[in-house]
């Protein structure tokens, strides 16, 4: 009986030749991540541990990104706690405002996450790095504390679901539409405790940014991780961004999968998740009524990368955001922000009547920078549309791709570029 990609990575990090689904193992960690919300709790827990300091100052990443630049006094205190911990422990990869970005866009860009790594992060979207062929998964603050102290974490080896992709994405259809389609198909607990492995010749047509988006939302199907094979595109990305040595693991031919789905990318359509679960999906063709909106958010760890901004700019070029609509665009990192400026994307956004913010998770989790009032509707490229996620419990979030979000900003209602 063979192993999946994920199982091979876990076996190698547990010092075992072989693991199987359900087995409990202890694995060595290549990177432990925390942000300004989860790290203070982890630091408090680590203080209770009988350890001298962190296991490896180079293998910890601390990224204040959720409520920064500090939104209020309490957030400032949290950030101060993280900053002081980072200095005290000489953490190499602490990213201050000015260097920081949204953690899951920032770490791959900084070359800290590569193929074959085992990565835990006290943030559920840590699964993003599976796009590069790493095993990465979200944990809580206590696991983060234990990881920082010992360099190890316990895992139950997951089974897997295989998504065999064929064909290529049509115009105005992106990785976001694919992952929303999948979540709509299998449900928000469809991959509970499991890996989602995305394979097949269709992977070739997906850009790295598409792959990050897809792996990022594996958690929205309940998955432990999402993972892609390491092809030439992934290698080129790592060669460009990282000096770390990477290891490529491939699934065995006789690896065991709990389920296999084949998806023809050519058949996908722009897909939107209706309130209040990411599984409530409809394609743009299934939306026949006018759904008027109040706000659009383009950004987040899911869709704040350069491809996403280029797509939004292509839609917004020489157009205007509809009267009464607030369109908020958030480049995910400083590098993406700078590149968007150099490519003239920011000019396009501002001329269209959108606002452009410094990198922050802000509105995605209802923190700040775009909170919704009762009865308001938002089309967002973010990852969750739970009750009250972006503000008032009586507000609504529609999850969509950057193309759909930008087109909706222009139309003042849910739309897509092909309808403008």
């Amino acid at each position, binding site marked *: 009986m063979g192993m999946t990609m994920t199982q091979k990575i876990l076996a190698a990090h547990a010092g075992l030749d072989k693991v199987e689904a359900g087995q409990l193992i202890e694995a060595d960690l290549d990177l432990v991540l925390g942000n300004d919300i989860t790290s203070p709790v982890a630091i408090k827990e680590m203080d*209770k541990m009988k350890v001298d300091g962190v296991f490896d100052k180079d293998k910890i990443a601390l990224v204040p990104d959720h409520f920064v630049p500090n939104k209020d006094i309490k957030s400032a205190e949290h950030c101060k706690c993280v900053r002081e911990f980072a200095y005290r422990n000489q953490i190499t990869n602490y990213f201050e405002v000015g260097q920081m970005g949204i953690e899951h866009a920032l770490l791959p860009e900084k070359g800290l996450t590569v193929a074959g790594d085992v990565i835990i992060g006290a943030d559920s979207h840590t699964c993003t790095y599976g796009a590069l062929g790493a095993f990465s998964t979200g944990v*809580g603050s206590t696991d983060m504390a234990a990881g920082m102290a010992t360099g190890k974490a316990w895992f139950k080896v997951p089974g897997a679901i295989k998504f065999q992709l064929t064909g290529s994405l049509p115009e105005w259809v992106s990785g976001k539409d694919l992952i929303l389609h999948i979540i709509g198909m299998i449900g*928000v607990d469809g991959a509970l405790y499991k890996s989602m492995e995305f394979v097949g010749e269709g992977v070739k047509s997906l850009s790295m940014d598409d792959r990050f988006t897809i792996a990022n939302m594996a958690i929205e199907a309940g998955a432990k991780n999402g993972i892609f094979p390491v092809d030439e595109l992934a290698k080129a990305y790592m060669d460009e961004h990282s000096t770390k040595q990477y290891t490529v693991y491939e699934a065995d031919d006789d690896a065991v999968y709990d389920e296999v789905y084949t998806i023809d990318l050519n058949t996908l359509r722009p897909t939107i998740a209706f309130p209040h*679960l990411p599984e409530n999906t409809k394609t743009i063709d299934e939306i026949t009524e006018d759904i008027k909106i109040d706000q659009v958010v383009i950004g987040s760890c899911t869709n704040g990368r350069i491809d996403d901004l280029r797509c939004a700019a292509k839609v917004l070029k020489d157009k205007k955001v509809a009267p009464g609509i607030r369109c908020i665009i958030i480049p995910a990192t400083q590098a993406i922000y700078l590149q968007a400026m150099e490519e003239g994307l920011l000019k396009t956004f501002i001329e269209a009547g959108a606002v452009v913010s410094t990198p922050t998770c802000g509105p995605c989790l209802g*923190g700040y920078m775009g909170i919704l009032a009762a009865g308001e509707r938002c089309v967002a490229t973010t990852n969750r549309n*739970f009750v009250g996620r972006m503000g008032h419990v009586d507000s609504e979030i529609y999850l969509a791709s950057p193309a759909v979000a930008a087109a909706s900003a222009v139309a003042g209602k849910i739309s897509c570029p092909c309808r403008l």
Partner: protein
Amino acid sequence: MENAKGIVFKYGDNVDTDVIIPARYLNSSDPAELATHCMEDIDKDFVKKVKKGDIMVATKNFGCGSSREHAPIAIKASGISCVIADTFARIFYRNAINIGLPIIECADAANEIEAGDEVEVDFDSGKIYDLTKGTEYQGQAFPPFMQKIIDAEGLVNYINAK
């Protein structure tokens, strides 16, 4: 481990960590303060009614979404002695074990127990008793490794003891 016994607060599928503790309160990490906002976006009366020892019961995928450990911390600090669910989202499951909030998986109990029932949970046997209805259920026992973390009342103590 001592039995849990209390009155049930009942919820449905996919209770996410954003409703357990909304992000607008995550500028605090104080358990007592978090507890004052626990569940408020789906059940405004929860914090007013909950008494020490009470039990939370929900159906599928409890604790999905954000990895915030503030969610099990808020539930524990509100006085809840045990959460029973058909299934738990995996990060919540880890977090609950790591901070010492007792949880137990049991589909029949999760589906049949109703709000207001008095329920007792025997952690040693995994048995769940609905004292109001007079019914009994067998919950999923923890693997020995996780039981050790629970017995140590959380991962920090477990690591310190090692």
